[in-house]
């Protein structure tokens, strides 16, 4: 592997990103500006996560990349190949074997350990952006801890829908100070933000890095009479039979037929390998037999 410097980015860029990561860890939930670089992929394809991963990777790492929980979707495959080519690191699809996991919009079902790093790809890092479009104002709101608007948004959900209808990118408060956008993970994943792993968030287009150190207090915003609820589709996985994992709904024909499957492909495969079977598992095996 001599065509690229290790992990693609030059040393100067990595130092700049690394300094931002250290400050992000020192002030959990605060978005540190950084000089995001052009990457050989378009904005919106995980350039922030890729830059954070590139600044953290060591040759001994075993990398896993997931997109909405799946290891085999375009974004995950292309980023995994990118690091295989530019860093020469080992890759895996097994959550338990990975040392660094880059993710788009999911947290793996299996609990992460203290030796793992989770890197999120973030599209819009600012939790107040859709409530207040001006960066000068949102920055002031963060500095003054002026977060009433977020609660108004959640209250309006209740007024219109009878419940908090926000189902992803559900705002959290970190260590009682900063309101943070956990990236568009389903709110089902919010409780997993309090983790033993180091969690780093990279937003390439918006040029922000933020972080959650291990065991950091992360509280999903709610009301006393409308407490936060980590919801999921009220089904069990049709392949592995799990009743506790986050599910994707898949349309399977033109007659309204549908199935629910684990969004975390590694979790689902591990369960099936252990002999768990869902409603449609047998037919799928016959199909591929």
């Amino acid at each position, binding site marked *: 592997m001599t065509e690229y410097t290790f992990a693609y980015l030059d040393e100067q860029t990595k130092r*700049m990103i690394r300094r931002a990561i250290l400050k992000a860890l020192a*002030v959990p939930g*605060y978005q540190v500006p950084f000089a995001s670089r052009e990457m050989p992929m378009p904005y919106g394809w995980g350039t922030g996560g890729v830059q954070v991963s590139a600044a953290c990777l*060591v040759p001994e790492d075993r990398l896993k990349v997931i997109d909405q929980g799946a290891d085999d979707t375009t974004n995950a495959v292309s980023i995994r190949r990118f690091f295989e080519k530019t860093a020469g690191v080992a890759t895996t699809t097994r959550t338990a074997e990975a040392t660094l996991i880059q993710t788009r919009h999911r947290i793996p079902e299996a609990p992460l350990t*203290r030796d793992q790093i989770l890197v999120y790809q973030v599209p819009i890092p600012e939790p107040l952006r859709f409530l207040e479009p001006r960066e000068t104002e949102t920055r002031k709101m963060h500095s003054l801890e002026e977060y009433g608007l977020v609660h108004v948004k959640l209250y309006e959900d209740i007024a219109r829908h009878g419940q908090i209808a926000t189902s992803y990118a559900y705002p959290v408060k970190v*260590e009682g100070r900063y309101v943070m956008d956990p990236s568009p993970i389903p709110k089902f994943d919010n409780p997993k933000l309090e983790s033993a792993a180091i969690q780093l968030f990279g937003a390439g287009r918006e040029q922000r890095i933020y972080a959650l150190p291990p065991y950091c207090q992360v509280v999903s915003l709610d009301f006393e009479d409308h407490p936060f609820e980590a919801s999921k589709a009220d089904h069990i996985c049709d392949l592995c039979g799990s009743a506790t994992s986050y599910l994707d709904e898949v349309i399977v024909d033109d007659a309204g037929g549908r199935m629910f499957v684990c969004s975390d492909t590694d979790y689902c495969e591990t369960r099936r390998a252990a002999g768990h079977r869902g409603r449609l598992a047998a037919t799928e095996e016959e199909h591929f037999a």
Partner: protein
Amino acid sequence: MDQAVMTGGFADPPIQSPQAFRAAMTAMARPGDILAVTGAQAPAPVSVAASVLLLVLCDPGTPVWLATSHDSADLRRWIAFHTGASVVAARGEAVFALGTWDSLLSLADYRIGTPDYPDRSATLIVEMPLLRAEGAVLQGPGIKESAQLSVPEVAPLRVNRALFPLGLDFFFTCGSDLAAVPRSTVVTDPAEVV
């Protein structure tokens, strides 16, 4: 320029700097954890760990302030040659500061960031005669229940914590070991813990 100034850098920066950074990041993410690093040696009396931090974190964009305990013509030339960072005369301009605890005081002179940009604060690299997981009790983000670290003094770190989200972040170095105490950590004298 003599040979001593040009030696002591990483032999293979693209590989050694990420390994060193992972240790520094883990230390900052888990205050109190002591990690070992290798690969760099600045002129005496700078420790291996402090030398590694200078190489991994400093560049022409980060002014460095050297306390009297460490300031020397050799070290200034080493920093200039290996990192390109400028050595500044005023603590208030520094992004990084290096020295022993006593010579780095008082902490009030460093940049602590602004309410809009709390990240624009200094990081202090404190050289220690000893670094052990004993003494002051650490609690806060990154720590499961509590940790212990032989920080030199508790009171200034408590003042620093009271500034949160502003404040200074600290690396403590001794030989090839390093540990970190970010501004988010609550430091308590062990005598006060019931």
